């Protein structure tokens, strides 16, 4: 009998407000340590939290996007523990009544069908600061710039059955968050962090004891950590052992995890209602307004691209990876309305590939949608061939000239004059008598040879359609 894997995920994502959750300090990343602090986020005596309303709105927006219930009255609680980067000695979080409950996300699976992953809750909380121990010769430093930065904790149901499903869920969630513009979700900057609860059991039996894997900060490590943990638990059980409930830390260098603390060592956080903050009341009208301002979500956009522009599911998927890319595509279509499919091909296959090599994303593209449209216009009106257009695009990435200027300067204009093409064909036929004889004797495959030779002789500028048509006539003699 096989093992079934059960995975639930907790994602902490930083809400991208300009100021912190409970004070006016900046949330900018990478500043001088402790330069973005004030008496409130330093936990000084007598200081009180005041909730950032925009962080609430962004959490509501996220809740609506995962089809969840918004609690019109939720509560803040204090989670008590001592750590030097937690200035107040407690974290303000939502424990008993979170802002968002009962949502879900549909994820793609290998079979091609979608699978629904339940999302138990999204609650708001504040981040802690950062402790630094390495290279400080036995001294620890504390940076409280991150202290009080608003977070959403997004808690899934234990609905995933493999590491691949977990990754699919995380990618879907990551994409959604970026679309909603509720978080930078940059994993390297710690703006999107994941804890995974993993257990194994025999199908049809109760869930096994779970282990919690902490602070996984790349999709690759998450997959590795889950797979490692699944194997560890299966081996343990098959060797007659028992999984214990514990928190484990994955070491991405060693590719293994170790126990951080057992259930017995688990903290008693002594949660209780935060008396400094009244219950969080939101109004239905506020929720409705936020819903009305909801941007198009990835799935909706994908479907619209397929129907409105006739794109293949694959192209539609590629072009809706980020809101910026989708917007770029639509700007391109608007500027080059004649052929949305050509737009998709040139953006997805040509421009994105080149940008990837340059290490740039679409927002930093040296070629604007308008300039690319100018190039596609020249393909459409047969001024240049698609092949020449690729060279023009290469040139466009290196300068700020329009396609027309480059075509003009390099003399790349396509030859569509039948007299000129016939002249080239004649000279090619004259230069290759043996092949001509072969073709005329029935070797049809030599057609390709002649096309190549003619294109070469025209330095690629001959209109390929016309070359084919004229060759068909002239070769026969």
């Amino acid at each position, binding site marked *: 009998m096989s093992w079934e894997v059960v995975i639930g995920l907790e994602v902490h994502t930083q809400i991208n407000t300009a100021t912190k959750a409970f004070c006016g300090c900046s949330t900018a990343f990478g500043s001088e340590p402790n330069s973005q602090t004030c*008496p409130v986020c330093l936990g000084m005596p007598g200081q009180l939290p*005041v909730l950032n309303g925009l962080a609430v709105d962004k959490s509501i927006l996220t809740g609506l996007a995962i089809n969840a219930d918004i609690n019109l009255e939720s509560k803040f609680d204090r989670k008590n523990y001592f750590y030097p980067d937690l200035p107040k000695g407690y974290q303000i979080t939502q424990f008993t009544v979170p802002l968002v409950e009962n949502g879900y996300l549909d994820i793609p699976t290998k079979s091609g069908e979608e699978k629904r992953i339940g999302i138990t809750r999204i609650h708001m909380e504040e981040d802690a600061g950062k402790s630094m121990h390495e290279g400080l010769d036995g001294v620890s430093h504390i940076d409280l710039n991150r202290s009080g930065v608003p977070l959403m904790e997004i808690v899934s149901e234990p609905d995933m059955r493999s590491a691949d499903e977990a990754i699919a869920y995380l990618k879907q969630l990551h994409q959604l968050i970026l679309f909603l513009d509720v978080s930078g979700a940059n994993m390297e900057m710690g703006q999107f962090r994941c804890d995974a609860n993993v257990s194994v059991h025999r199908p049809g039996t109760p869930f096994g004891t779970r282990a919690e894997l902490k602070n996984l900060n790349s999709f690759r490590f998450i997959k590795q950590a889950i797979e490692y943990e699944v194997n560890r638990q299966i081996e343990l059980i098959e060797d007659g052992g028992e999984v214990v409930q514990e928190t484990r830390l994955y070491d991405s260098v060693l590719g293994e995890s170790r126990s951080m603390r057992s259930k017995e060592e688990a903290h008693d956080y002594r949660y*209780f209602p935060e008396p400094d903050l009244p219950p969080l009341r939101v109004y239905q009208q506020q929720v409705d307004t936020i819903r009305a301002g909801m941007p198009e979500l990835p799935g909706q956009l994908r479907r619209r691209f397929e129907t409105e522009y006739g794109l293949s599911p694959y192209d539609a998927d590629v072009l809706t990876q980020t809101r910026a890319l989708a917007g770029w595509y639509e700007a391109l279509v608007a500027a080059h309305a004649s052929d949305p499919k050509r737009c998709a091909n040139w953006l997805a296959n040509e421009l994105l590939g080149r940008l990837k090599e340059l290490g740039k994303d679409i927002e930093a593209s040296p070629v604007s949608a308008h300039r690319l449209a100018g190039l596609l216009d020249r393909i459409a009106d047969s001024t240049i061939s698609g092949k020449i257009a690729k060279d023009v695009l290469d040139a466009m990435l290196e300068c700020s000239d329009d396609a027309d200027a480059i075509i003009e300067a390099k003399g790349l204009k396509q030859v569509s004059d039948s007299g000129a093409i016939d002249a080239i064909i004649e000279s090619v036929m004259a230069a290759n008598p043996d092949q001509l004889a072969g073709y005329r004797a029935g070797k049809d495959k030599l057609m390709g040879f002649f096309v190549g030779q003619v294109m070469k002789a025209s330095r690629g500028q001959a209109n390929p359609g016309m070359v084919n048509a004229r060759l068909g006539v002239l070769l026969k003699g």
Partner: protein
Amino acid sequence: MPFSTLSDIQSRLNGGEITAVEVAQLYLDRIEAHNESLNAFVYMDRAHVIAQAEASDAYRAQHEPRLLEGLPIAVKDIFCTQDGPTRCCSSILEGFDAPYDAHVITRLKEAGAVLVGKTNMDEFAMGSSTETSAFGVCRNPWDVSRIPGGSSGGSASAVAAALTPAALGTDTGGSIRQPASLCGITGLKPTYGRVSRRGIIAFASSLDQAGPMTRSVRDAAMLTEAMVGHDAGDATSVADAPIVSWLAACDKTDMKGLKIGKPKEYFVDGMDAGVRAEVEAALKQCEALGAEIVDISLPHTEYAVAAYYVIAPSEASANLSRYDGVRFGHRCDAPDDLLDMYTRSRDEGFGTEVKRRILTGAYALSSGYYDAYYLKAQKVRTLIQQDFMQAFEQVDIIATPTSPVTAFQVGEKTDDPLTMYLSDIFTLAVNLAGLPGLSQPCGMTAGLPVGLQWIAPAWREDLLLNAASAYESATAWSDLAPEAFAVKGDKV
């Protein structure tokens, strides 16, 4: 002069009879002369006080005087002030200088007050006698072998002995009203949410409220007027709190038509007979002024002490976690590791009573006990609120003794925390219900002051002031001064 009220001093300042500097000097001299026997002030900077008074005189020369122009006000050591140290009378805040003023301190400065210094208190406001202070015991001017009450004992003692004409206190379970009662002065705890808590060192956030301690009802109204108002920096400060005409509310001289509730649970066996007699006499006086006394019941009163001593320590256990030796305040010498730093810094920095409350609170919140203690206490709190709401359907206002006893001897109850906790038995239900309460002097027994407590519905401080000023106008208890500190040949 020193035993004058703020209003008297204000009219003499306004009349040009004296200057703010002269007023300040008079009280500074008294602090220097008497503080040694009372230990009411824990910090005072003479030059800084004079500088403020000079600035006030200069302001007055150019402008209309502000609400508290040139008036000396002392503040409990729980209010953060940019000037001078803020210690909450605890060793753990050794060396701490707040880089900010509490919101109410800003309000007082804007009103032109002269801040004369910091007054003694129970450490972190945890106590009813001002004996747990890191700066030593504070004493009652009516009998220096006795305590002044607490936790705002320094403010009460200083006002009663006229070392300052008025002071600020804070009240979490009676910490303004009980010492006011024991020292024979007036103390007002406003409705929860009326005064911003920002910059006031937190004891129990859902109960704490700052208020005035003064020599008259009108002074209390005047000082409250300067303190109140919405503060966007305190989410529990109420934005649309009903407005009170603070000074006009003090013009009442009779109680015609007033229905006063007399709760049977506040007149019980075991309380001091002298206290009971004085309060009963005061209620007779109220009847003479036209009030109707109605016997009422607040049936859940007996659970108030237990509920309070779960809720307040629970909140305190978290509020005091920030004193960890990491960023400010006391840190132990040469810690072995992080845990050692935490435990020794806190062990050395906190006094016994503070530790007792942190432990009590942490226990009440811990897994497996939360429902039985914290949650149950919150349910009791709701019942107590309902008791008051039902009572206020029958009566306009409630009158009780402020404290079941008069000032007790220094050291009398320090070994018996439970008996000490009962000192607040008549005051702490008011905090649990978030209501406004006022204590005013209403008699003397065995040479010690007795306090009368008024309790009104939320936001009806005007009713407290109406009743208290009518009572005050018909009696002379507020005018009494402790003889040892009285002045012969008042020179001003």
